[in-house]
């Protein structure tokens, strides 16, 4: 299982990639494998305000459903249409094509509360 070192992680199994004041958010390889075949991703509308730790959507597999929690606060500037049309990309490429939303980061200080790849791996016992 792969946990790229350039991402930050939450204990709820989301990742965020920061680049120039924006963050790309998705779920981890571990999360997708625990959920199984993902069939539906419900995402907020562009313009929605996220608050760190609060839910911003849901993800459904055949026999499981889970809330999505915002790794950091910010405003949604883009959503990935591809995961809505073909949710299986989250299973196939959780960190690349399976990203879900792009947000304009509101408070970069929140970054320090997130886990790095090693701490996340420890959390899930990998």
């Amino acid at each position: 299982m792969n946990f790229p070192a350039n991402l930050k992680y939450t204990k709820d199994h989301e990742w965020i990639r920061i680049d120039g004041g924006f963050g790309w958010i998705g779920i981890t390889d571990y999360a997708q494998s625990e959920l199984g075949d993902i069939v539906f991703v419900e995402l907020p509308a562009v313009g929605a305000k996220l608050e760190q730790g609060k839910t911003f959507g849901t993800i459904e597999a055949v026999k499981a459903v889970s809330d999505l929690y915002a790794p950091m606060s910010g405003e949604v500037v883009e959503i990935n249409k591809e995961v809505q049309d073909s949710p299986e990309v989250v299973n196939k490429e959780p960190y690349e094509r399976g990203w879900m939303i792009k947000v304009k980061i509101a408070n970069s200080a929140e970054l320090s509360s997130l886990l790095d790849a090693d701490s996340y791996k420890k959390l899930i016992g990998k």
Partner: protein
Amino acid sequence: MFPYEENFQSRHLGVGEADLQKMLNTIGVSSLDELIDQTIPQRIRLRKPLEIPEGVGEFRFLRDLQSVAARNKVFKSYIGLGYYDTITPSVILRNVFQNPGWYTQYTPYQAEIAQGRLEALLNFQTMVIDLTKLDVANASLLDEGTAAAEAMSMLFGLAQKSTNGQPANKFFVSETCFPQTIDILKTRALPVGIELVLGNHEKARLDRSFFGAIVQYPAEHGAVYDFRSFINHTHEVGAKVVVAADLLSLALLTPPGEFGADVAVGSTQRFGVPLGYGGPHAAYFATRNEFIRQMPGRIIGVSVDAQNNRAYRMTLQTREQHIRREKATSNICTAQALLAIMAGMYAVYHGPQGIKRIASGIHASAKALANMLKELGYTQLNEVYFDTLNIRSPVPTSKIRPIAERSGINFRYIDDKHFGISVDEATLPHDLEAIVRVCAEASGKSMPAFSLEKEIRITDVGYPPPHQRTSDYLQHPVFNQYHSETEMMRYIKMLENKDLSLTHSMIPLGSCTMKLNAATELFPVSWKEFANIHPFVPQDQIEGYRQVFSELESFLCEITGLHACSLQPNSGAQGEFAGLLVIRAYHQDRGEGKRNVALIPSSAHGTNPASAVMAGYKVVVVKCDDMGNIDVDDLRRKAEEHKNDLAALMVTYPSTHGVFEEAIQDMCDIVHKYGGLVYMDGANLNAQVGLTSPGVIGADVCHINLHKTFSIPHGGGGPGMGPICVAKNLAPYLPGHPLVKTGGEKAIHAVSAAPWGSPSILLISYAYIKMLGGKGITEATRYAILNANYLKARLESHYPVLYQGEKGRVAHEFILDPRELKATTGVDVEDIAKRLMDYGFHAPTVSFPVPGTLMIEPTESESKAELDRFADSLIAIRKEIKEIEDGKSSKEDNVLKNAPHTAQAALSEAWNRPYSRYKAVYPLGFVRQNKFWPSVGRINNSYGDRNIVCSCPPIEAYVEEEI
């Protein structure tokens, strides 16, 4: 009982004297008493036998019941209000309603061996979609009233989702909705903070504080309104509209989907399902595509199997309580599958022309009747109507009523000047004549001269715009090719043959109690004295039913050790909801309305948290320990923490893990100490009857799944019944009904549309208890525990057993844990479940209460021979897994991963499996004697959830397949 009389107990129990000793030896006990002593903690055992009379033989029971039935008066009822006499086509009555091949199946979770009823339910959904002209429909709800409440609840949920901050919380209810529907809306609205605003839709001015509205079509007194401007107005303020519609009327009237409805609900009873004094019948629920993920209830969808053939399954299960728990859109679990199947079959048999003929006949009869009554001075007030006349009488209705009743006729008496007449499919010309005769006599006039042939003009049934339906319906081939009885009989049989039911083999589902549904228990359901009675007839016409209710209530109180009973709830989940509302009413009445916390163990059935949320409770989860028992310390901590707002504990006993927890009384004491009451989920009551009881363990309320413990068949996902029994202090709050006096003196609002839920199937449980008697139902419990422990003894050296009691015994069910095999062999519980199909068995429960395990409940009705076949099969499967462990079989391409094997796959030219065809389909000797062929291969679940199709696939899909 006379010694020469036949004893029903020996028919109900699967194990005879000869096998008993062998089974006890295998278990390692000397007697059944010893086994029971080791299983059920001494301190909760009943000290004396149940005070329920000795059982009677089947013949004597039926003869006795005939005299009870004779106390019901079967009148012609024209009362309407959502219930109408109907003609059940004999081919459906005989081949579906009275056929164990249709009524004994379980809910179609194992879709590969349930394609028949899945297709039948898809027909039902297609029929509803066509007639309402909405995009999607579910596979039934419990009744029209609760379907309306589900619609309100769904729209409220959507409103909460779409608004940040203060969501709209008002729901407009047209005062012309059926009274029972309005009452149920109240029941559902109050606990979750919805404000109902009752009014006239023509005068209503809604604003942004409303999230929705409901209207009745045709309305309570029969008027058909044009709702377009009301709906436009409602949409303008951002609210959505539910139309409660008579499905049959939509064959003639503009359907709700064409005038802007967002949701349509209603009953499908008049599609050939007997009245049964109120139920069971299937309600429908249809809505727009965009709301499908919020739609309550089971939805049948289309997918493909491993060979890419079309296959059906239940889709979007993530909406449901068993997955989403307290976040579910509804607590609905058991629905009305069998009745939905009947209604769908009615549409298949009649087709679009037949349905139109029936609807036209009804409307033409109503028109003719109005004309004839006019001559006698009776004025019909509805401008536009379908089947229901709203009549202003020239004489007081109190004068009409005795004459009508003397003639065996019930009208709907609105007040002293007005009465209603709802004509139905079973109203023949001479029935109309009888109605006219009553009205003539009441008004002191002579019978008018008329010719019925002239009066009933079926060709003359058009409506003025915008009421006339112009769109077609039921165009799919399935509704257009089975119109002769021969074709219909074969279609029903073809579907039946795809389904595994109790007619084939045991269905060992944990917590579902798939016991015998004896033919004698089922017979009376079809008797006209029970089947052909409208739920709102005067009470002096149902003395037979009242006797059955009163005896059954006293039996259930005796069995549960509680004080009073309500037979109203139509399912276990609805019983939970009712019970929790009763607890809430009790706290409120004592000035403790702030108590709103429900403690629920993590092992609870998903309906528990879902019901608690619906009843306005806050769910606090209590942990379980490593042994699967409720963590008593955690319970104590949380009860104390919430001592000021603790309302109830919801607990299943014996536990959902199949164990009699020793500490149950302590747990109940803790909850009582902190001011809470104990709700016991009765799903596992089959392990208690006659040996212990909810009353003894300390419960204040419990529901009883009559479709589990008391022999009502599962019907492939309903009907069911979930009466509740309560302690004395809660009796005043038992649910009431707006039209018929039921419940306590401080009754909560109705939870079901009919006062006694689904009375006709109460007869099944009544028969079960009468024929087995107090001793027999206790023996049933003992044998259920025997069978479970026997299977455990046979299987425990092959698979780990997850939880057991302190003395190594299990209750009436137990859990096998194959999870560790996954890492070494890749085999998971799904593979075992599907492979069992090749052996001719339905899998045990596989995803509850512990995902990835098998929960097995054999019930008392199975014989040693059947238990052995099942055990042999699981042992043989373990050997097949061992072949993978030993490297003799491939991890990817083996009998388990490729299961189930269809005849088509096994006989294909291109067989290229690394094992033989014979091993695939005849894995054990006994299978050759009685092979059940799964009709499709492993179904692709994710494909179905990603590509949602919930109606019969278009005609092109069939053509493609033929190529």
